C-alpha cells in the first residue's frame, strides 16, 4: 500500500460496487408489499381544473387508491416550503405564493401533478392514469422571462401582480451613477443565460415506507441532503416529528443541484404509505424529469461597464430578470441574488457595482440552483462583457484583464458587493493556462485552419466563484431559513478502525475516498480501515448535505474538528497509560509519544483502553473514543482560475468542433488530484454543453419543446474533446484544511471561454455577441447572413 494521505491520487473505494452492478440506488430498493405510484401531470401550461373524475381509474385492475390535491389538503398536508426569503428594494418580503403538493384548482406548468394513482404494479398504475377524466379550462400562459413583465401579461398567481416575485438590488447606485457620468467610455451588452435541464443520469425516485408496529415513516429518496428533506417535509408538509421520520439517500446517480430540493413526489409517497399502510414507490420516467426536476439558469440581463480612457473599470451596472418558473423551488430565490449579484466583482477591482434583479413567475417548471447556481450567470455576464469591451475599444483582451485584476497582494479583498475574498492569485492561473494552451502561438494555428476552410477561435475566461456558503448567522440575516454548518461524527472503534459519519452526501464526488484520505492522513489509519457513512438520518447526527462545492471545505473541516477532539482525548488516555503529563504527549499519524522519550502507544492501544477501561482515568474521562463536531465556516471560500477554449467552426455548416480545452483552477489544497481533475472535467463538459448544445425551450404557449433526450441536446463523447486540467494553489485562510472546493469551477469558468472562442472565430465577420447555445444551426444562419456583406467589402 503506497501513500494514501492528502495529495495522493488514490483509486476510489466506491468503484468496485459501481463497476460490478452492486450500486444501491433508490429504484433498486424494494420493500415487501410495495405499491407503485404513477403521477398524472398536467399537459396544460395554465388551466383551471374544471373537473377531475377519479372513479374509473380507482376501479381499474390492480389500483389501490387514487389521490388528488384536495385529498391531501383535507388531511392537513401543507404546501412545499421555500427555504430562502428575499426582501424587495423597499424592505417588504418577496411574493411567496402557495405551492400545493398536488395541484388544487389550477395547474401552472406542464408537469404540475394533478393526481396520483397507486397500484400493485407500475404498469397497472400507469394504465389506470389513462382513465382519469380531467377537464381543463385553459388560461392564457406566460412562458418566457421577458414576457412575464409585459403589461397585461397573464398572471401565474392571482395575488402576485405583474408576476414579480421580488425586485431586489445590491450596491451603491449613487456612486455607480456618478462613475458613469464621468466615464471616458461606457460599454453595454445585453445577454441571456439559457435555461438548462440538469439531467442527472439517474431519474429521481422516492419510496415511502410506514412501519405499522412503531408508527415510523421511512423515505428512501434520490437526494443530495436527506436531513434537509426530513426537516422540510416533516415540519412543513406532513407534520411528522423528526423522531418518527427517517430519510435515506442511498447511492445517488448524479445531482448537480437538481436533487437538493424537496419535491412533491417525496411527500406524496410518504403520505400515501401512511394512508395505505404499505410501501409506495415512485420512479420518474425521463420525460417526467424534464417537466418536474428544477431547471437551471434562465436570466435576461443588461450589463454596462464605465471605463477610464486607459481601460480601467470604474463601475459596473447590471439589471437582470430571473425566471423562477411557476412556483418557488426550495432555494430558488437566493440563486439570482446572493449567489449571483455578489459575484459581479469577479476577479476585478471594479470599485463600484450596482445590480438590480427582478425575479418573475412564469408558467414553466420551477428554476433553482444548477451546478454553479448564480456564479455561472455572473461569470458569463462579466467575462463576455470584458471581451466585448476589448472588441469595442480595440484593447487586448488579456491585457485588459490583467490591468483590472485584483492583485495578489490585495487579499483579504473587500468587494463593493458584500463579499470579502480571503485569497487568490489570478495572474498565476492566467499565465499557467495561457502557457498550457499555447495562446501565444494561436495566430499560426488560426491561419492554418483558415487554409482548410475552418474558422478557428480561441477564448479565455478568468473567473472566481464562492463556495461553502456561510456563516450561518450571515446567511440567516440575508434570508436563509437554515443554518449552513456541517456535522461530522468520528468513531474510533475498539480495535482501531474508524467510521466517520458525515452530513454531506456523495452522488459522484467520491467522498468515500477523499474523506477516508483526510482521516487517514490525520489519524494514521490505512484507508481500507476507514468507512465513510452518509445519507441516512438515522445514522448521522445532522447535516446540510452537498451542494455549492461545500463538502470538503465545510464537511471536511467538521471532520478535522472531530478528529482534534479524538486526539485531545487520546492524549489524556495516553498520558495515563504512560504515566506522563498530558502536555508532554505528542500525536503523529497514529502514534502517541511522550516527547523526548522512546515511550509510545498506538491509536489501537488507546482505543482499546477507551472501550475496555480497566486501566483508565475513569474519574476524569468517560470511556469510548467517539466525537462529534459541528463546523460553521467563517466565510465562503473563493476558488478561481482561467479557462482557455480553442475551437473551429466549419464555414459551410456552422458546426463547432472543439479543438482544445485547458482549465487551470485554484481550488486550494488538493486531497485527491485524480478526483479533482475528474470534477473539473465533468463541470467543463456541462459548461461546454450550455455554451454549444443545451437549451430548454418553451413555445409561446408554455409547452416544453425540448422535453426529451431526442430534443434536448446532451453533450455526447464526440461533441467534446480532451479537457486538460491544471491546478495552482493559494490556500483558503479560514478553514483548517486550506481547501476551497472543486465541484462547480468547471461549469462556472467554461461557458464564457467557449463563447469568447466562438466570437473570436467569427472575428472577420464583425460579430460582437451571440447568445448561448451556439448551435450549428444558429452559427450557419449568422454565417449566411453576414456572407454577402463580406463579399461586398
Amino acid at each position, binding site marked *: 500500500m503506497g501513500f494514501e494521505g492528502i495529495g495522493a491520487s488514490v483509486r476510489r473505494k466506491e468503484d468496485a460496487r459501481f*463497476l*460490478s452492478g452492486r450500486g444501491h440506488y433508490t429504484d433498486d430498493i424494494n420493500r415487501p408489499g410495495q405499491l407503485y405510484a404513477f403521477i398524472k401531470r398536467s399537459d396544460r401550461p395554465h388551466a383551471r381544473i374544471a373537473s377531475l373524475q377519479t372513479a374509473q381509474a380507482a376501479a381499474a385492475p390492480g389500483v389501490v387508491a387514487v389521490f388528488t390535491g384536495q385529498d391531501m389538503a383535507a388531511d392537513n398536508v401543507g404546501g412545499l416550503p421555500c427555504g430562502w426569503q428575499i426582501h424587495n428594494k423597499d424592505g417588504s418580503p418577496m411574493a411567496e405564493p402557495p405551492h400545493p403538493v398536488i395541484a388544487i384548482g389550477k395547474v401552472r406548468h406542464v408537469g404540475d401533478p394533478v393526481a396520483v394513482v397507486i397500484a400493485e404494479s407500475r404498469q397497472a398504475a400507469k394504465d389506470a392514469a389513462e382513465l382519469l377524466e380531467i377537464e381543463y379550462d385553459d388560461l392564457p400562459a406566460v412562458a418566457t422571462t421577458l414576457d412575464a413583465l409585459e403589461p397585461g401579461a397573464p398572471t401565474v398567481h392571482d395575488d402576485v401582480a405583474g408576476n414579480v416575485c421580488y425586485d431586489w438590488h445590491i450596491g451603491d447606485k449613487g456612486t455607480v451613477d456618478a462613475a458613469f457620468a464621468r466615464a471616458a467610455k461606457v460599454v453595454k451588452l445585453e445577454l441571456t443565460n439559457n435555461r438548462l435541464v440538469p439531467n442527472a*443520469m439517474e*431519474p429521481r425516485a422516492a419510496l415511502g415506507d410506514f412501519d405499522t408496529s412503531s408508527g415510523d415513516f421511512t423515505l428512501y429518496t434520490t437526494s443530495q441532503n436527506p436531513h434537509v428533506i426530513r426537516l422540510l417535509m416533516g415540519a412543513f408538509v406532513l407534520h411528522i416529528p423528526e423522531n418518527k421520520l427517517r430519510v435515506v439517500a442511498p447511492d445517488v446517480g448524479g445531482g448537480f443541484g437538481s436533487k437538493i430540493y424537496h419535491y412533491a413526489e417525496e411527500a406524496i409517497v410518504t403520505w400515501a404509505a401512511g394512508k395505505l399502510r404499505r410501501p409506495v414507490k415512485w420512479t420518474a420516467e425521463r420525460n417526467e424529469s424534464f417537466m418536474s426536476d428544477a431547471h437551471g439558469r434562465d436570466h435576461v440581463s443588461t450589463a454596462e461597464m464605465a471605463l477610464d480612457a486607459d481601460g480601467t473599470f470604474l463601475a459596473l451596472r447590471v439589471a437582470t430578470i430571473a425566471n423562477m418558473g411557476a412556483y418557488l423551488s426550495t432555494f430558488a430565490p437566493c440563486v439570482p441574488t446572493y449567489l449571483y449579484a455578489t459575484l459581479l466583482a469577479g476577479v476585478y477591482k471594479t470599485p463600484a457595482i450596482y445590480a438590480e434583479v427582478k425575479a418573475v413567475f412564469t408558467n414553466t417548471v420551477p428554476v433553482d440552483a444548477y451546478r454553479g447556481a448564480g456564479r455561472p450567470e455572473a461569470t458569463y455576464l462579466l467575462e463576455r462583457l470584458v471581451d466585448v469591451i476589448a472588441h469595442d475599444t480595440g484593447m487586448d483582451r488579456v491585457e485588459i484583464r490583467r490591468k483590472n485584476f485584483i492583485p495578489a497582494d490585495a487579499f483579504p479583498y473587500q468587494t463593493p458587493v458584500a463579499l470579502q475574498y480571503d485569497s487568490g492569485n489570478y495572474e498565476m492561473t492566467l499565465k499557467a493556462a495561457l502557457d498550457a494552451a499555447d495562446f501565444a502561438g494561436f495566430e499560426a494555428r488560426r491561419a492554418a485552419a483558415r487554409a482548410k476552410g475552418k474558422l478557428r477561435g480561441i477564448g479565455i475566461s478568468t473567473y472566481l466563484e464562492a463556495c461553502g456558503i456561510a456563516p450561518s448567522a450571515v446567511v440567516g440575516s440575508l434570508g436563509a431559513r437554515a443554518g449552513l454548518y456541517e456535522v461530522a461524527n468520528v468513531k474510533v472503534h475498539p480495535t482501531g478502525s474508524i467510521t466517520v459519519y458525515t452530513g454531506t452526501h456523495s452522488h459522484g464526488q467520491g467522498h468515500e475516498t477523499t474523506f477516508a484520505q483526510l482521516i487517514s492522513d490525520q489519524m494514521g489509519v490505512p484507508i481500507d480501515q476507514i468507512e465513510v457513512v452518509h445519507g441516512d438520518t438515522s445514522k448521522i447526527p445532522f447535516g446540510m448535505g452537498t451542494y455549492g462545492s461545500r463538502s470538503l471545505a465545510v464537511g471536511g473541516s467538521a471532520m478535522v474538528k472531530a478528529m482534534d477532539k479524538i486526539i485531545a482525548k487520546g492524549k489524556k488516555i495516553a498520558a495515563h497509560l504512560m504515566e506522563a503529563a498530558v502536555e508532554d504527549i505528542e500525536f503523529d499519524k497514529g502514534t502517541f509519544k511522550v516527547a523526548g522519550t522512546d515511550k509510545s502507544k498506538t491509536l489501537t492501544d488507546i482505543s482499546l483502553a477507551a472501550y475496555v477501561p480497566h486501566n483508565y482515568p475513569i474519574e476524569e474521562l468517560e470511556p469510548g473514543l467517539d466525537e462529534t463536531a459541528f463546523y460553521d465556516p467563517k466565510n465562503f471560500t473563493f476558488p478561481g482560475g482561467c479557462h482557455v477554449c480553442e475551437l473551429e467552426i466549419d464555414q459551410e455548416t456552422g458546426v463547432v468542433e472543439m479543438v482544445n480545452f485547458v482549465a487551470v483552477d485554484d481550488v486550494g489544497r488538493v486531497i485527491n488530484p485524480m478526483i479533482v481533475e*475528474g470534477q473539473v472535467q465533468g463541470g467543463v463538459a456541462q459548461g461546454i454543453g450550455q455554451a454549444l448544445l443545451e437549451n430548454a425551450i418553451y413555445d409561446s404557449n408554455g409547452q416544453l419543446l425540448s422535453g426529451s*433526450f431526442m430534443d434536448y441536446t446532451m453533450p455526447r*463523447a464526440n461533441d467534446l474533446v480532451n*479537457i486538460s486540467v491544471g491546478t495552482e494553489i493559494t490556500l483558503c485562510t479560514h478553514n483548517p484544511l486550506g481547501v476551497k472546493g472543486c465541484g462547480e469551477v468547471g461549469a462556472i469558468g467554461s461557458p464564457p471561454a467557449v463563447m469568447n472562442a466562438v466570437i473570436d472565430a467569427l472575428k472577420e465577420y464583425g460579430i460582437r455577441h451571440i447568445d448561448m447555445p451556439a448551435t450549428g444551426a444558429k452559427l450557419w444562419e449568422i454565417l449566411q447572413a453576414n456572407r454577402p456583406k463580406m463579399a461586398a467589402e
Partner: protein
Amino acid sequence: MGERMPQVSLTVNGKQHTVEVEGRTLLVELLREKLGLTGTHVGCDTSQCGACVVHVDGLAVKSCTMLALQADGMAVTTIEGIAAADGTLHPMQEMFREHHALQCGFCTPGMVMTAIDLVNAHPDGLTDKEIREGLEGNLCRCTGYHNIVKAIAAAHPLMHGQAPKAAE
C-alpha cells in the same frame, strides 16, 4: 384477463431462467424486476442514454428497447456477469477504476458493456476518435467522457492479449 401469461426462457449470466412476463415487458424490466439484477439501469424513455446496455448473444443491446419475449432462447450478459468467477474484475472494469472513468456510477454499467463490445469489434485497435464515435449511444453527465475514453483505450490491449499500458 385470466389468460396465461407468456413465458420466456433465457440464459442470464450463465444461468437458465424461465419467467412469465406480459407481452409488453421489456428486457430491462425482466432483468431488474423479475431477476433482481439491478445493475442494469434505466436512464431514459427514448433509447438515448445507454444506461441499460447488456449483451445479448455477445452483442451490446439497449435492454429498454427489446421485449423480454424477444430474448427467448438467447444468452444475456449483464454487468453482474462480466467479472471472473473468483471476483477478478474484467479488464474493462479494472481500467474504468484505474482511470477514474466513473463518478456517480449510474451510466457505468451500460458504458462498460458498450465499451467491451466496442473493443471486441475492433481487434486491430481503436483511435480516441473511434472510441468517442463508438460511445454515440451512451450518455454520461459526470465525467465529460475524457477518462472513459482513456479507460477504453487502456483496456483494448488487455482484452486483446497485449501488454498493459502504464496508467498515468
